[in-house]
Structures are given as C-alpha cells and as structure tokens.
C-alpha cells in the first residue's frame, strides 16, 4: 500500500513553521507551478484525476476550466473551510497540522485560474486552525510566497481569512458566498449563480475544499503520474463505535470493512450494525454492504442515495437504536434548515413529529409509509442539497431496519436498548 502523504507530517509539532515546511519539501509544488503556464497547471490537475473532497466529487481541473480566461475579468478563489457535515473532521485536522500545505495549494490554484485575491471561509469554532493559518500566512508574506511578485514570477496574490458565525448551511457553496458577502447564508438559485460564472461579488469564482487544495500542492510537487500511482488517496473521518476513531488516508475504493479495520475495528464483544458511509447526508447501510468500495463511482454505494460524500464514516454497533440515530439526524437538518424552501422547512418538522411520536411509544404502523411519503416529497424538490440530505437515512432505515421500527410501534419500546440492559 502507498505511503500516506497528506497526513505524513501532520503530527510534527513544527510543521506549521515555514522553515520546517521548506525543509520537508514545502512550496516545491508552487515553485514548479510557477515555471508552467497557468493552463498547464489546470491540465496537470485534471490529468491527476483529482475530484473535489468537499462531498460532491467533481473533477477539480474541469471545475477550474469553467472559469473564463479573459484577464480583464476579475476572478476569485474561495476555500470552503466551513467543515460541518456531522462526522467530518479531516479539514480541521489538515489546517491545524499542516497549514502551509493549504496556503501552497491556494497559491497554485489562484495562479492556475488567474485570481489575485483568495478567501478562506473558516468555521468560527476552529480557533486552533485559525491561529495556525494566520501564522502561516504571515510567514508566507514575509518570505515572498504571498503578496507581490511571488517567487520572482510577477504573480501576486492576497489571502484573506473570513470566519462564519455558526450555520451548517454556509457549507453549501452559494450560501457560503452569500455569507462571505455579509448576508444571511441562504443558497442562491442555480442557474444562473454557478460560482464559476457568477460567484463572489458576481465574479467568476473557484470554490474548493481544504483537502482538495492540499492534494493540489502534492500533485504539483510530485507530478500527476506519481499522484495517480498513489491510488488517489482520500481522507476518511472515522468515528462512532470504533476502537481508534480518527482521520485515515487510504486509496479511493477501499471497502467499508477495510476502513473500519484501519480504525481498529469494533470494540471488544460488539458487532457491526450499520454505518453512514459519507456523513449523515448519506444513506445508512447495514452489514450486507461492508464490502462495498468507498468510491465516487456510484455503481455500488448508491443504495437509497448513499454516497461517499465527505468520506465521514460513522460506525454503529449492535447497541445502537437506529430510530434514535435517524431522529437525531433529522432534528439536526430541521434546526439547520435556512427556511427558504418549503419541502425542507416543513418536511424536516413533519419528520421530527413522526419520530417523536414513535419514540414516545405512540407510533402507528401507517407512520412507516408516512415517513417514506414525506421523504419522497423532499426528494428532488428542495432548493439546495441540505433538504435533499434528509431522505436517504429515512428510505434506507425503513427498508433495512423495518423490524426495529415495527417493534417500536408495536411494543412502544426499544428492543435494542432492552437487550443492551440485559
């Protein structure tokens, strides 16, 4: 198996310092990029096969190609560092442990798309990441990796950190831009507001995830051929009922089972019950899917709308009440819904009411069809991906854990919890 590189220096205490970063080969990717034409940099990233690590998995090189090349048009780079998908913590880990890597990736990306201002929209709660980034940015300015005439190339770039203020919806790209412009984080209509066409301040904007830009720094440093030989690594955030929760760097296509093994497996005496493979926006999969490859290729993972998403694997063992998990998840989306569109605003409230009823022992058998019906009403009808994130957990659990729902309704109690107590 290839050596990890994204996480390679993450635990070195001095990795956030410019000299240590340079001594470990830092900014080599930028130096190489500056010897190439911007179009060649885009080409190299496209050839690497890199797909965005924010959750949508779109080709990074192709995304950059959507921006106009006209030098008279002002373009921006915006980094989505508003990591908030439940179960996801890899971007925070990268920013705290290797902040210069993100800065390097940002300069390369800005050079590739001809942007001279770049913004990091950082989650407000990431105090340590902000301190690490502010320090790294100051060092990069002092040493000529940011500001005027970077590396003697004539290229100039300024980087600005802006923080959110507590809103999951701000992670949606157009809502993020609204927030960065000082407004409520409500998503924009697509079309016409594709960021590459009408993004920040209505100018063409490349919006990239933190991990994506860290990959870019490595791709330019070592070349796309080397990168592809590494098996397209991805950072999995593994949490829940595993022995060693944490961030793991493994090739795309690693099976759910192998990712769980990497995280130390389940706790002694416990067995696997289910998982969210890609954050709480993905469907919940039972043990029958343990050998499914974790890949953007939806051929196998696309069970009731399951997906790789942000690669946040949340593992649940046999002590877990699935209804409690789904109810908690829906409550989250209800509270974080911006209220702009009806299916999301109302659907999440209705679903919560049905779950509350069932969990309080007042469920009815027809509630199962009602849950599926509300979920169908939210599928393909919501204004943005937040509302669309809700149905997969409903569809999948009503299908795979129907017995558990029926028991709750029939016996007005939880058989899983009862078994754990015994």
């Amino acid at each position, binding site marked *: 198996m290839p050596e990890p590189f994204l996480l390679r220096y993450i635990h070195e205490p001095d990795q956030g310092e410019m000299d240590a970063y340079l001594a470990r080969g830092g900014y080599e990717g930028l130096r190489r990029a500056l010897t190439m034409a911007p179009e060649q940099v885009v080409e190299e990233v496209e050839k690497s096969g890199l797909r965005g690590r924010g959750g949508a998995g779109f080709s990074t090189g192709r995304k950059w190609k959507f921006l106009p090349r006209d030098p008279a048009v002002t373009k921006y780079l915006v980094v989505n560092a508003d990591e908030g998908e*439940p179960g996801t913590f890899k971007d925070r880990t990268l920013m705290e442990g290797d902040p210069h890597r993100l800065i390097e990736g940002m300069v390369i990306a800005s050079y590739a798309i001809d942007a001279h201002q770049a913004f990091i929209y950082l989650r407000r709660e990431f*105090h340590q990441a902000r301190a690490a980034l502010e320090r790294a940015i100051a060092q990069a300015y002092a040493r000529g990796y940011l500001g005027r005439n970077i590396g003697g190339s004539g290229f100039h770039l300024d980087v600005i950190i*802006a923080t959110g203020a507590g809103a999951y919806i701000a992670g949606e790209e157009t809502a993020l831009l609204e927030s960065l*412009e000082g407004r409520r984080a409500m998503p924009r209509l697509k079309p016409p507001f594709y960021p590459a066409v009408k993004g920040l*301040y209505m100018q063409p904007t490349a919006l990239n995830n933190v991990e994506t830009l860290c990959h870019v720094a490595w791709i330019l440093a070592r070349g796309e051929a080397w990168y592809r030989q590494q098996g397209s690594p991805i950072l999995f955030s593994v949490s829940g*009922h595993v022995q060693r*929760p944490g961030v793991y760097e493994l090739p795309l296509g690693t099976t759910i089972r192998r990712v769980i093994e990497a995280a130390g497996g389940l706790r002694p005496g416990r067995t696997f019950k289910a998982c969210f493979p890609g954050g709480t926006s993905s469907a919940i999969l039972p043990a029958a899917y343990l050998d499914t490859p974790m890949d953007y290729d939806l051929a196998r993972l696309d069970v009731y709308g399951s997906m790789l998403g942000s690669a946040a694997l949340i593992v649940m063992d046999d002590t*877990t009440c699935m209804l409690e998990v789904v109810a*908690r998840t829906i409550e989250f989306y209800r509270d974080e819904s911006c209220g702009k569109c009806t299916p999301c605003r109302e659907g999440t409230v209705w679903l919560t009411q049905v779950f509350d009823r069932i969990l309080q022992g007042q469920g009815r058998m027809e509630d199962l069809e009602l849950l599926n019906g509300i979920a169908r009403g939210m599928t393909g009808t919501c204004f943005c991906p937040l509302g669309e994130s809700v149905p997969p957990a409903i569809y999948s659990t009503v299908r795979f854990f129907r017995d558990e729902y029926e028991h709750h309704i029939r016996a007005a109690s939880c058989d899983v919890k009862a078994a754990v107590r015994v």
Partner: protein
Amino acid sequence: MSGLSPDARAAIRRLAATFPERQSALLGALFVAQEEAGVLYPEVVADVAEVLQMPAAEVAAVASFYHLYRFRPEGRHLIQVCTNVSCMLNGCQAVLTHLQRRLGVGLGETTSDGRFTLKAAECLAACEVAPMMMVGPDRHGPLRVEQLEEILDRYA
C-alpha cells in the same frame, strides 16, 4: 446600554478595508462588537450598521441568522456540548445530564454566578475525541463524567 467605543469602530473600519466590498466585513464586525459589548444590544447593532453604512434592520437580520451571536447576556465561559451522532453514540447525554445537574442550569441557561453558559451544540468537527465539548475556544474530549469537575476548575 451605550454603543461601541472608538477603538471597536476603528477595528471594524480596518476589517472592512481588507475586503473588496465593505459588507463582507459584517460577520467579523459583529464579533468585534460582541466581544466588546458582550451582547448585540440594539444600540450596538445600530453602531455596526453606521460604521458599515448599512441599514440597522439588515444588520439585525443577518445577525439573527447565525448561532454564535448573542442577544442576551451569557456567562464568562460558553460550554458547548456536542450532541450530534458521533458524540451521541459515545454517550454525550451522560455528559450533558451531569453538567446540567452540577451547574444547576438547563440548556441555554447561565449559572447564577455568571461563570458558565451551557449549550448543546451540533457537530464541532472533532469526532475523534467524542464525546466532546468546547469551553470557550478549547476542545475537550473524549470526556468521562469523572473528569468534568477538573475541566470546569480550569475556568474561573
């Protein structure tokens, strides 16, 4: 309650100058204001609006959208206990129940000595240390109920 000091106004102006458009500084400006005044009182919101040359109603509308702005006084230290799925699977409820009992407050409430405000939070992106909480800017986890006393002691 009076409005913002000249220093805070200057800090907001400096922030505004870093962005291509002034309004982009609004979220940051509200934090500057909140750090100084403690609470986003209407007078404070009006001052932020004046410095950024925006209608006060628009500033208030933006502020009310986000969780991290305060419109009522809170304690010196904000305790945010994550209650999302990964922390729930790892027993956050016991942590929350213990803190409620120990501090004698419900969710969203402040201790009578003004030391702590207790809140349940959504995923704070630190599931590797679930169950976890933040006290002010600090992350704590994986939490065990027995450790909570010692953690609270660190915050005067």
